[in-house]
């Protein structure tokens, strides 16, 4: 993975981006209503798959905007990129 296709700027060098970890983690609005185990799940537990991984990226040295990507973590091939708020693309599911 030498380049990443930013959905706003196009293909750019990986050095311009910062990894934001697993995507689509939902923070409960009422965190005080969660049990310790549920809170630990949100804070710490991760899918960490060997294969397709939906993740967040930040184009820190470019447009300074966040986006999501689906990447195969075994080959580091990026399968799809999509903007925040958009659903994970069908092709990559």
């Amino acid at each position: 993975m030498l380049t990443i296709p930013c959905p706003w700027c196009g293909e750019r060098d990986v050095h311009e981006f910062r990894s934001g970890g697993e995507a689509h983690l939902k923070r409960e609005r009422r965190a005080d209503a969660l049990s310790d185990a549920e809170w630990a799940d949100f804070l710490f537990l991760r899918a960490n798959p060997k294969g397709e991984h939906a993740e967040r990226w930040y184009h820190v040295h470019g447009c300074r905007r966040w986006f999501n990507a689906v990447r195969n973590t075994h080959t580091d091939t990026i399968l799809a990129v999509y903007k925040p708020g958009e659903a994970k693309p069908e092709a990559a599911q």
Partner: protein
Amino acid sequence: MRRYSIFALARNALGYHEGWERAWRSPEPKPDYDAIIVGGGGHGLATAYYLAKEHGLTNIAVLEKGWLGGGNTGRNTTIVRSNYLWDESAALYEHSLKIWEGLSQELNYNVMFSQRGVMNLAHNLHDLRELKRRAHANRLNGIDCDFLSREQVGEYCPLINLSPDIRHPVLGATLQRRGGVARHDAVAWGFARAADARGVDIIQNCEVTGIMREGGRVTGVETSRGTIRAKKIGLVTAGHSSVLAGMAGIRLPVESHPLQALVSEPVKPILDTVVMSNTVHAYVSQSDKGEMVIGAGIDPYVSYSQRGGFNVVQDTLHAIVEMFPMFSRLRMLRQWGGIVDTCPDASPILSKTPIEGLYINCGWGTGGFKATPGSGHVFAHTIARDEPHTLNAPFSLERFTTGRLVDEHGAAAVAH
């Protein structure tokens, strides 16, 4: 097992070295074992060795999907130290360092443990304060740690660039004189030979593809070489811990990242200690072959590719060349990546799991090699007694729910 000694060497020299026996057998897997260790790296082999030696369990197997020590055991930069901040970690890593000091004799295998000192550099005021705090904490825990001023750094390691006008000037350092390096392959081979001599079956090219369970407890594993049954299973598969735990339906607080290292062409001895720097993310020592062994920071994204990005290598070499300007003329020979599994608190997990008979040893992040013998020792205790050793009780899976984390991001030396 025929012991290695000067006499054995002389005897075999007379026979043109054709009489050496194989260091370990290559048995076919049995259908049933008392315990199975998944993962034939240093930690897994050490676990099997101590299970056999200290707990009398000899009907056990180590299953390795590739070859022994072909994962992170053979990919690290071989640094051994115990200068961690918190009491829990200091006790665990110091336990390991004490075993290292007698390991070659214990295993009758030269692991080439060389206590040449490990220096951690400070480049700014925050580093100075953090390192001084850690030096005091180490001393309170009975761990040797000296604090060196900038001038003392120059006396101890004259190669370092002490110029005040570089981007990250050296302001001081801590020095653990009992720290050093060991030959990583020999650690795996030594533990394998000693475990095999006690009856442990070491089975290579045997990939675990499923973990069998019945009524909340494990009953065995599915492998590429058939089903093998066992009442106790220890997972010691750094890098792939989430994948293996996932086979048993367990989610881990772990993410897998590539950690890269590289070596230069071999040169005559010029660097007789280990130099590490948190701030610029680089660490270097000279191997007995003469190569500079250089380690980088982790690639920041989740990956199982065992490669990593070129930009990380570039950043590391920028830092190395600033610290050691003369290294700018060295050519680099090889570069590689290992997959490390990192925990949110930069401390390992050595724990029972919610499934009876299933134990997990993972999350060592970027610094598992130094802990190899101690980790195997306490993990064997956990498996044999079905309860943690005092030293690994704080490193349970439950700590992520209770919030009792052991935050070692400072001492881990590589940010993650």
